């Protein structure tokens, strides 16, 4: 039924929680914890939905997003961005970079499942 | 003299005595000098009597009281016109 989700997030407990939730909902979840080669990973895996944390080691989420959009294989992929700052400035920058959806931490479990589902369609 | 009615005068007139009055006040002593300090006086002071009083006496005292009366009139006019 469902497809592939790439989760780019540096907090191991959050990765664990989101993976558990999406896998239980039938998604195949790939994880990556580093901003450095995140876009490359995304191109290789070709997920249906990308979940991207705003604050990553070595590279910010926005930069990763720009790279994803720059790459032809991933440019059309829906990207859900997670942020812990929730500041309007970050949101505006993300939208400019071509984010599909924006979600502030902490989020409800149901919301992230529904959003991923919606983005995949 | 105090019974003179205190009618409100036109303000212009109050502020400055009229030029003629000021000039008269200035000229009065000259009149006195002319009448009392020129040889004119000799013409009126012959040894003759008028009404039992020597002419010289009546002339001098007459001029004198005349000056006083004129001075009083002018002083009142000047005084009343507010520039005393």
């Amino acid at each position, binding site marked *: 039924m469902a497809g592939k989700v790439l989760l780019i997030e540096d*907090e191991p407990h959050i990765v664990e929680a989101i993976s558990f939730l999406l896998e239980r909902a039938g998604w195949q979840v790939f994880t990556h914890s580093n901003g450095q080669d995140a876009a490359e990973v995304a191109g290789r895996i070709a997920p249906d939905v990308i979940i991207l944390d705003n604050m990553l080691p070595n590279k910010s989420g926005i930069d990763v997003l720009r790279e994803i959009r720059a790459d032809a294989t991933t440019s059309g992929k829906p990207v859900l961005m997670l942020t812990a*700052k929730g500041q309007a400035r970050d949101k505006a920058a993300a939208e400019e970079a071509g984010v599909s959806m924006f979600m502030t931490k902490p989020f409800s479990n149901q919301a992230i499942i529904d959003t991923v589902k919606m983005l995949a369609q | 003299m105090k019974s003179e009615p205190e009618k409100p005068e036109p303000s212009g007139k109050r502020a400055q005595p009229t030029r003629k009055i000021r000039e008269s006040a200035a000229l009065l002593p000259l009149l006195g000098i002319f009448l009392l300090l020129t040889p004119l006086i000799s013409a009126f002071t012959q040894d003759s009597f008028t009404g039992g*009083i020597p002419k*010289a006496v009546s002339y001098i*005292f007459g001029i004198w009281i005349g000056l006083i009366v004129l001075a009083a009139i002018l002083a009142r006019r000047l*005084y009343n016109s507010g520039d005393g």
Partner: protein
Amino acid sequence: MQSFNLLVSICLLYVAALFVIAYVAERGVQEGRLNFLRSPVIYTLSLSVYCTAWTFYGAVGSAARSGLEFVAIYLGPTLVFVGWWWFLRKLVRIGRTQRITSIADLLSSRYGKSNTLAVVVTLLAVIGTTPYIALQLQSLTLSFFVFTGGSGEGTSTPFASVTAFWVAAGLAVFTIVFGTRSLDANERHHGVVTAIAVEAVVKLIALLSVGIFVVWGVASGPADIFERMDQDLLQSSQIFNGRWVTLMFLSAAAIICLPRMFQVVVVENSNERHLATASWAFPLYLFLMSLFVLPIAIAGQSELPADANPDLFVMTVPLAKGQGTLATLAFLGGFSSATSMVIVAAIALSTMMSNHIVLPIWLQLNKKRSPASDDVRTLLLRTRRISIGVVLALGYFYFQITGGSDALASIGLIAFLGVAQVLPALLGGVFWHSATRPAAIMGICTGFFFWAYTLFLPSFDGAFILSQSVIENGPFGISALRPQSLWGNSFEDPLVHAVFWSISFNTLVFVVASLLTNPNSMERQQSAQFINVYGRISPSSTIARNAEAEELLILAQRILGRQEAMNLFNQTAVSQGKVSGLPDPTQPFVEELERKFAGSVGAATSHAMLAQITGGESVSVEDMIAVADETAQIMEYSERLKTQSEELKKTAQQLRAANSQLLKLGEQKDTFLSQVSHELRTPMTSIRSFSGILRDSDSLPPEKLKHFSSVIHTESIRLTRLLDDILDLSFMENGKVQLNIAPVNLSEVINRAATATETQLQERSSELLRNPASEQIKVATDSDRLAQVVINLVANANKYCDAEPPQISVSCRRNGGTVEIDVADNGSGVDESEVELIFQKFSKLSGGFFVGSAGLGLPISREIMRNLGGTLTYEPGGAGALFRVTLPLEHTEPASA
């Protein structure tokens, strides 16, 4: 005949009554009651000090000897008063605006406030007045003798001198009591003036009563009296002659120049309008005083023996007719005349002497200390009292020396001429801008010399300085210099001769000297104040620019500077077609000047200044001074504004700096909050997710259940620690942290740190290397806090050290008064560019990434060390990372909390 004792009693009673009147008047005016005492009537009556005993008694004597001549003595003042609009009004206005205290003061003030001039005038006044006072004493003594049966010839008897002495002493006391009660700003003496006014009434009533008695009691009316007249008495055909004119002139001058007349006319004047009344009322008083002089003289001549003294007819005629009471009244009239004259003259002279002679000398002597005003007041009052005594003593001695001689009888007119010497300077001062101080002094001295030489000294008949032969033949026999006929000119009368020469030379010297000398700036200012005292000069034509180029130049030099002014004037002169000299003060030129001046002093002031010189506008010097004052105030104000605005500028700068500081702080705060938010949200995200999973999932395997619960537990602990750190840091940054300072051994601190980090170290299998020997150092500090720092550093090293296995070494050493604790690891260290970054809040080194670090450890440690009076630094250059803690052996307060 009245007994002498009765007469003395009457006099004493009369004087006592005057005392009471003067006292009541003084008090009344002070308390604001009795305002009628400031009326023009009182003023007019006080002017009657002109009529002294000499005129009271002497007018009849003069009439008996020379007919109508006596009238001239009254007509002169009449003309002056009738012509008050010309001169007296101005004099009174000047006296009031300039607060003049005497005639000497007036002249001194006009001529640049020259004290020399004041002294000259004062001496002249004293010399001229002393014989006059002696004359009053003589008249009084004579009148006493009339009643005690003497013939009037015996005034040189010891009895007469005793009488004169007591009269003089009594007058001195009265004058001192009422003339020096206070130092009124305007030197007005209401008590004295009122007493004088009462005496004036007594004089008038006395003379009128005697006159009426003579005309209607002795004779049967005016016609009858003149019928008894000696045909030669009036000498009316020769009435107009040099003496007539001279007497008129002298008396007119005297009414202005006599110190006592100046005192009552100008100084005691409380309202200028009183002068308007006095302008006719005083001549009327004089008219009434002289109305019966001729009849009394005629009656005396016809009724009394031929050898009777005509000077005493006023009393002897009633006495001869058995009218003792009337004669007593006449006596009181004479007594009033004499006393009022002496009192006012003494006041006037004492004012002059104290103000112009004693005070300047005293100020000279006390130059070093600045005199308190009370000092001066006391001094002035005292010297005035003494001066009054001196003046009366002089009069008394003069009377003693010359007593009874004919010299005294003629002294009245001699004194008139003496004081009249100030007339040219006075008139010039009030009407003539160019009159100068040296000219005034020279003129007065010249006049004084001629007066003394031609009239005063000859009046002693060879008894004083000029011998009889000099008077008759001239000094060294030079007949051209004979005192009473200079240059051989023979006047019919010595008085006319003296008046002519003294006044002529006086005026000549005054005028010529004025033309030859230049007034100084003070004189200029004062002359403008005096001459333009009315404040407005009625413009004589539409454009009354009658400025003097010279004056304009002086003003221009003052305002524009010497050179620029000269250039401007020369240019203008050339453009006006003048080869040399100053330009004409044409309208365009004056306007140009006005504009130029406006640049320096402002338009209004410039206009006022030029208007002052050119007379084109009605602006007084006072106005100018006011304008100048205003300008000065405005300038001072703007100066203050300038400083204020500078201060404001400074304050604004400081505010701007503070504002940008605040903005920066605000930004930092925003960043901090956003970081805090991020750090808090991260554990909360895990907690929320896993707790949600636990809640929603019914069938979780037990190991999953346990794992998820432990994640929630771990993240909760992380959250709590994060909050603790934030609060800790905040407290420490605000210096609110509580320190428990106690002596502690460093080994204890490091033991605690080792224990606390043991688990972490085991996780990474890190090795902690210690040097126990170096740890044996005692420090006074907060051991808990210091342990926290060491724990942080060890934990950090454990986290970030990139060597495997990590080795962390802790070593201590003393360095002077401080202790150093080094925490080092065997990793690659901190990049030089990141050294400052690591001490910032929430910073994570790019290389490292560990769960549970909020990045607050180093900032907190650094704050702790600051609070403990030490430092935490990163020491680069070593093999790995080396953090060094430095703290004092003894705890000291941090430099800034």
